[in-house]
């Protein structure tokens, strides 16, 4: 699935840079990052309040 910079930025903002880097490098799977990427792609980077709450609840 291709992601735009806007979508990736939204996913990073919703999680954290450290989690995002560890996740995409395959060092440590982060469910919050996975979900953030999926939802950010769906909404083209415009995550809703509900999306953010869901992502936050999945943060380690």
């Amino acid at each position: 699935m291709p992601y735009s910079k806007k979508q990736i930025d939204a996913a990073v903002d919703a999680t954290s840079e450290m989690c995002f880097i560890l996740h995409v490098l395959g060092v440590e799977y982060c469910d919050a990052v996975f979900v953030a990427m999926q939802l950010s792609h769906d909404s083209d980077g415009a995550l809703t309040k509900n999306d953010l709450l869901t992502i936050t609840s999945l943060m380690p």
Partner: protein
Amino acid sequence: MADITAYSGIDMADIAKISGVVKASSGGGTASTTPTISVAEGLFGFTTVTVTNHSSFTNPNYQCSAAVGATTTIADSAVDHSLDTGSDSVSSVMTFTDQNASTGTRTVSVRAQEFGGNIQSAVATATYDIVGMTARYIRLRGVTASGAQSTNRLAIYDLRFFESAGQSGTSHPTNLVSATTDSSGNTYYTADAGHDYSTAYPEWRAFDSSSSIFHMYWALGTSAANNWVQFKYDDTQFSTPPTIKSFRVGIYANGHFATHLALETSNDGSTFTQLGVFEVNPDTTTKQNFG
């Protein structure tokens, strides 16, 4: 090497005359006790065979197979043997899943051979039939290995139920384009779920025509109680719901956390019975078949 024309003074031609009269030895010894068996048939061909006189054997092994007429549906190599308490010998219980497409009653055959120089026993037989399910509502729930409700969410991009074993015969539901309508405009099924995260991942996406893993039902943020997806047969179109003998599920492994799926059925939509628990592999590329 020269041909042998005589052995111990007896001409080979004379020896040839008695060939076939004298039976080859099977190893000698006394025949093991003939086992007595019981057979329990679960959903979609899951079968448990129990040797009920297991305690009368000394460290036995069992050979088990099943057939419909001359067609072997389960070979001995496909039978799972379990170990006794202490894990020092085989137990009385054997299990297998009979997914052979043959129809008709199966005959399961079991022989025993026990330690101590005994030869194999006479065969014991019993019969079973493949069991399906017939219900108005069919629900798939994310559960633990023990079948308990779990928040480990579902992510299902394909789910189909078949009237015959081995994912054959008529499949249900047809390809849905909404919760109540299929791609032909018929309203023969109603899809539902305990939890919908968003309109991007509604329940009917598990039953649509798309093979894309992203066109899925996703129970993101579900509670344990609501971690399910189901469909209902229309009362008019299906005055009697069909009997289902197998199903297929495609999961989006990265988004799917449930290690096991429970199959539940109901005829009133409120009281559901759990019929079986199926372990799923975290594999997106290969749809998983049961029954």
